[in-house]
């Protein structure tokens, strides 16, 4: 069946909402903008002339910006032909720890998404998380941890936190295995040298962050030690299963260890 000529032409233009994940300088004045979009998943597209100070795009195509976009499909890369701001998460960019947590979200979306695969839940959850991060004063790190766990679930990388990964036992769960990708009971852990201890509270926290909607996060009770253990295990789980280093999380750890060594002196 042949389409009418007008409709054919329109196939090269497409519209969707998207959040800027990262930008990369291209040539003298252009940038490649990587976005997570609602309708088309992850897209890398060219923004022409954006680095000139008179560019019509101005600040719009910066990380932490949510936009209504129109793309023109090119042979290799698409080009952004229109970009209108829905929301700038300037609550995130206005403070050093928020910006680091925000970048950690953007990086994880970038690393877990593959171009050409679309999942509108990822765009929607990132928008919600950035919005919450920009408004939260207590529990900023908890917002990031919740985001991590939900995103891992959407992408099929969530560790097994239901039952023992070895024998399906529902009780006596004491360890976490990076090679098997989930929790273990004491007996199964003895035969897995890669396993590390995990607190019962940490397992409970993982389960509750998976199920709690963002608006219910303020009611989640936890302490620094439990959240710290959860973050540590999740970060290691991600690096193990994706065989990548998450640069932003390394950066956050480096900054934190510098701060604490300063306090010790």
């Amino acid at each position, binding site marked *: 069946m042949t389409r009418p000529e007008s409709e054919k032409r329109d196939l090269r233009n497409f519209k969707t909402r998207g959040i800027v994940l990262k930008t990369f300088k291209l040539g003298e004045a252009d940038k490649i903008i990587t976005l997570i979009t609602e309708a088309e998943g992850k897209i890398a597209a060219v923004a022409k002339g954006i*680095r000139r100070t008179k560019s019509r795009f101005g600040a719009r195509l910066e990380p932490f910006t949510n936009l209504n976009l129109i793309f023109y499909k090119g042979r290799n890369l698409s080009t952004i032909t229109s970009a209108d701001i829905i929301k700038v998460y300037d609550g995130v960019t206005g403070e050093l720890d928020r910006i680091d947590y925000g970048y950690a979200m953007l990086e994880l979306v970038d690393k877990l998404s593959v171009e050409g695969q679309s999942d509108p839940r990822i765009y929607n959850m990132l928008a919600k998380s950035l919005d919450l991060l920009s408004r939260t004063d207590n529990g900023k790190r908890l917002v990031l941890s919740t985001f991590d766990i939900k995103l891992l679930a959407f992408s099929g990388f969530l560790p097994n936190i239901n039952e023992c990964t070895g024998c399906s036992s529902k009780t006596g769960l004491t360890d976490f295995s990076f090679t098997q990708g989930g929790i273990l009971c004491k007996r199964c852990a003895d035969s897995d040298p890669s396993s590390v201890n995990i607190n019962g509270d940490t397992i409970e926290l993982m389960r509750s962050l998976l199920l709690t909607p963002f608006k219910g996060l303020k009611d989640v009770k936890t302490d620094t030690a439990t959240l710290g253990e959860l973050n540590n295990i999740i970060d290691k789980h991600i690096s193990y299963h994706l065989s990548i280093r998450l640069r932003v999380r390394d950066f956050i750890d480096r900054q934190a260890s510098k701060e604490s060594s300063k306090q010790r002196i």
Partner: protein
Amino acid sequence: MSYYSEPLSNLIKELQRLPGIGPKTAQRLAFFIIEGPAANGEKLARAISLAKTEIRFCKQCFNFASDDLCPICLNSKRDGSFICVVEDAKDIFAIEKTHHFNGLYHVLHGTISPIDGIGPEHLKITELIERVKGSPVKEVVIATNPNVEGEQTAMYISKLLKECKVKVSRIASGLPVGGDIEYADEVTLSRALDGRHEI
């Protein structure tokens, strides 16, 4: 499989590596060099090789220099109580063109960029703090680019400078966010310098 002899096609190939030079322009430049007097070609070659071997970083501000200090740091007419912090040495030229700043500079050689793994330890930030500590510097003007990375770098530096009891200011938002300082016109940049605010 070129129409040109090898030395000529080599020259075209090398010229084409330069920013903003496409194949057509590279070819035009190559012909210009070859058809001109031999002395001119040699002068150009020598200027390039001298620049590459002689230029190093200024020990004080990390601008390009041919001695220990750059011409700006050496100039006794410059006001040492102001330091303008820029991302890149190219930004110095943009600001100098405005004739609106008579202090000294400090070149960071980049911005903090967690996503690229670039932390403060990769930039000349420790050097800036050391330079300001116990010096007659009264004000540090942070002129990083008005984008997310530039803002983050500015916030980080101002946090560290709080301990140094020095006024820290940020160039005004007259600059369109997202644009590069390097490309700003003189009028906009002058206004941004005049309208800086304390942070």
